[in-house]
C-alpha cells in the first residue's frame, strides 16, 4: 500500500471526508470537511469519487514525505506549496515521485485541502474516516504519523480548475428558522443591514461573528426547549452575538436561531479571511432549494471545466523539478518507477 509520512504538522490538521450522516438521533453530528465544495473540486482534479478521505489544514502548516509515487490535488484556501523546493500551483493536481517532500505553508486562514489519488485509507469508524474532534473520533495529525493510501485507479496529473469564488467574504443567503418570527421585524432587518466579520472564536463546531453596534439578543426570560439544530444555523447567544454552527456542531440546542445559512453558501463563510466583510440576506425556502439544486448540478459538472496547467518557464525556479512533478520523463519519473 502506498503510504505517506507526516514530517511536520501544525495544529488543526485532520483527516476529513464528507462526514458520517445518519447518527443525529444518537447525538452525533455529521462532521466532515468544513468546506464540502473543496472535496468535490479535489475529486474532479483527480478524476475520482468525492467520498475519499483527504487532509484538511485549518490555517496551519504541513510537511509530508511520499513513500511511493502518488497523485495529489490542492484545493480550498490557497497556501504556498513546494515539492522538493519547486513551487506547485494551488487548485491543481500534481504527480509526486517516491521520496518527494511536500511542504505546505503560508496559510492566510480558512481551510486548505490535500487530496490523494485513491484517498487516505485510515480505518472507517461508523462509516467514515473523518476525525470528529468534538465527539472524540480521530485526532489531529502529528509528526511521525504514517497514513496509507487506497489504490489510485490512475489518471492525469497537472490539471487545474478555477475554484468557485469564496475567499473574500460577501453575502450569505439564509432561510428563516422556526424561531425567526420570535425576533422583532426591525431586529431581523438590522441583522441583514449589519456587516459582520469572523472573530477569533471559531472552530469546527462553529464560528462567532463580530460586529459594531447593538446585539441581537431576544428579550430576557424567554426560554426555549432544545430542538434539532443543523450546520448553518445562526444562534444568537446570551450576549447578542451571532454564532454560526458548522460541521461538528451539537445535534440539539436551545438558543434562538435567527436564520440558517444555505449549505451552498457555507464554504464562503468558512473560507472568509478574518478581515473579510460578511452580510446576510433572507431568501425564501423555494429560492434556497433552487440554489442548492443548481449548485449540485454545477458540482456534478466540474470535471468538464478542468484545464491542463499552463507553464511559463520564466516563472519556474527549478524547471527540472517542475517537469518531474508534472509527470514528464526523467530518471525517477513517477509513472515509470511505479510500473
Amino acid at each position, binding site marked *: 500500500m502506498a503510504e505517506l509520512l507526516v514530517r511536520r504538522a501544525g495544529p488543526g490538521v485532520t483527516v476529513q471526508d464528507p462526514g458520517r450522516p445518519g447518527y443525529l438521533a444518537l447525538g452525533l453530528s455529521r462532521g466532515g470537511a468544513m468546506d464540502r465544495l473543496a472535496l468535490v473540486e479535489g475529486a474532479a482534479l483527480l478524476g475520482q469519487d468525492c467520498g475519499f478521505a483527504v487532509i484538511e489544514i485549518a490555517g496551519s502548516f504541513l510537511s509530508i514525505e511520499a513513500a511511493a509515487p502518488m497523485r495529489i490535488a490542492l484545493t480550498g484556501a490557497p497556501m504556498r506549496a513546494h515539492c522538493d523546493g519547486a513551487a506547485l500551483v494551488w487548485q491543481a493536481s500534481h504527480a509526486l515521485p517516491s521520496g518527494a517532500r511536500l511542504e505546505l505553508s503560508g496559510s492566510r486562514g480558512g481551510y486548505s485541502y490535500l487530496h490523494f489519488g485513491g484517498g487516505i485509507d485510515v480505518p472507517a469508524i461508523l462509516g467514515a474516516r473523518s476525525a470528529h474532534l468534538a465527539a472524540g473520533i480521530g485526532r489531529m495529525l502529528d509528526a511521525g504519523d504514517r497514513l496509507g493510501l487506497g489504490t489510485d485507479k490512475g489518471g492525469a496529473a497537472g490539471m487545474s480548475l478555477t475554484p468557485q469564488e469564496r475567499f473574500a467574504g460577501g453575502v450569505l443567503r439564509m432561510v428563516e428558522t422556526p424561531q425567526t418570527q420570535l425576533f422583532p421585524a426591525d431586529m431581523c432587518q438590522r441583522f441583514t443591514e449589519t456587516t459582520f466579520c469572523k472573530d477569533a472564536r471559531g472552530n469546527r463546531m462553529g464560528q462567532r461573528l463580530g460586529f459594531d453596534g447593538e446585539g441581537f439578543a431576544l428579550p430576557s426570560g424567554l426560554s426555549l426547549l432544545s430542538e434539532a439544530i443543523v450546520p448553518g444555523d445562526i444562534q444568537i447567544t446570551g450576549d447578542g452575538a451571532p454564532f454560526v454552527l458548522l460541521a461538528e456542531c451539537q445535534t440539539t440546542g436551545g438558543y434562538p436561531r435567527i436564520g440558517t445559512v444555505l449549505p451552498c453558501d457555507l464554504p464562503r463563510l468558512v473560507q472568509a479571511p478574518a478581515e473579510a466583510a460578511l452580510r446576510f440576506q433572507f431568501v425564501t425556502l423555494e429560492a434556497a*432549494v433552487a440554489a442548492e439544486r443548481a449548485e449540485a448540478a454545477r458540482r456534478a459538472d466540474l470535471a468538464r471545466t478542468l484545464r491542463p496547467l499552463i507553464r511559463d518557464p520564466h516563472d519556474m525556479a527549478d524547471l527540472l523539478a517542475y517537469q518531474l512533478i508534472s509527470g514528464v520523463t526523467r530518471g525517477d519519473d513517477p509513472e515509470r518507477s511505479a510500473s
Partner: protein
Amino acid sequence: MTGSDATQTRHCRRPAMQPLGVDGVSVSFGSDLTEAANRAALAFRASVEGADLPGVAEVATALTSVYLRLDLSCTDHATARAALKGLLASRNWYDAALPQGRRLWRVPALFGTDLAPQLHEAAALAGLSPADAATAICAAPLRVQTIGFAPGQPYLGQLPSQWDIPRQTGLTARVPVGALAVAIRQMVLFSVSTPTGWRHVGQTALRLFQPEKDDPFLLRPGDEVLFQSVTRAEYENIRATDPAGGAVAERLG
C-alpha cells in the same frame, strides 16, 4: 376539565410542522416538556422510520419534536409535508405507547464528594439534605427523553417538581465523562468532557459513546435509567475493574 381535555387544550395548535434549514422539517408536539409530548415525539419517530417515506434521509427526536432530513434530490418539501401530514392525522400521538425494545439500566453512581462537588448546592435549591437528594434521585427510573447535544448523551426525566431548579448562571469549566448533572427536573449524563451550566451532583463510570466499539452508543431514546448510590470505594472499584461502568440492562415489556 378532565386531564385529557387539558392535554387537548395545551396542544391545540400542535403538532406544528415547519421547515428547519433548507432540507429539513421539524414536527413539534409541544413547546413545553410534558410526558405526553415526549411520548408523542418518540412514537412519531418510530412510525416515520417504519413508514419508510421516500426522500426521508434521516429522522431524529429532540425532547418534544422530531427532525426529518430530506434528500432533496428525490423529494421536495411539499411532497414530504403531505406524507407527514397524513401520518400525523392517522392517530392521537399524545397517548401513544412507548417504543418497543426499551431497556432498564441499573447504573451505580457516586453522589457528592470531590468527584461530584455540587450535590450540596443542588440539594439546597431543591429543599433537601444531600443524603435525601441522592435518595430522591435514585427512587425511581428516569426515562431517556432524548439523546442529543453530544454523541450518546441522554436527557433523563422527569424528576419531581421540587427539582425544578435553574441552571447556574455561570458555567462549570469542565465536567468529566460520566458526570451526572441536574437542572429543570432533568438530569444529563455527560458522554464527553465539556463545560456546562448544569450542576454536577453525581459521578458514574459509564462511557456512553465508545467510537471504537461495534455498537458505540450505550443508550437509546425511551430506555430507562435507575441510579444506585454507591460508596467512594465501590465507585473506585467499578471504575478500575468494569469497562461497562457497573451498568446492567434488562428488557422492558
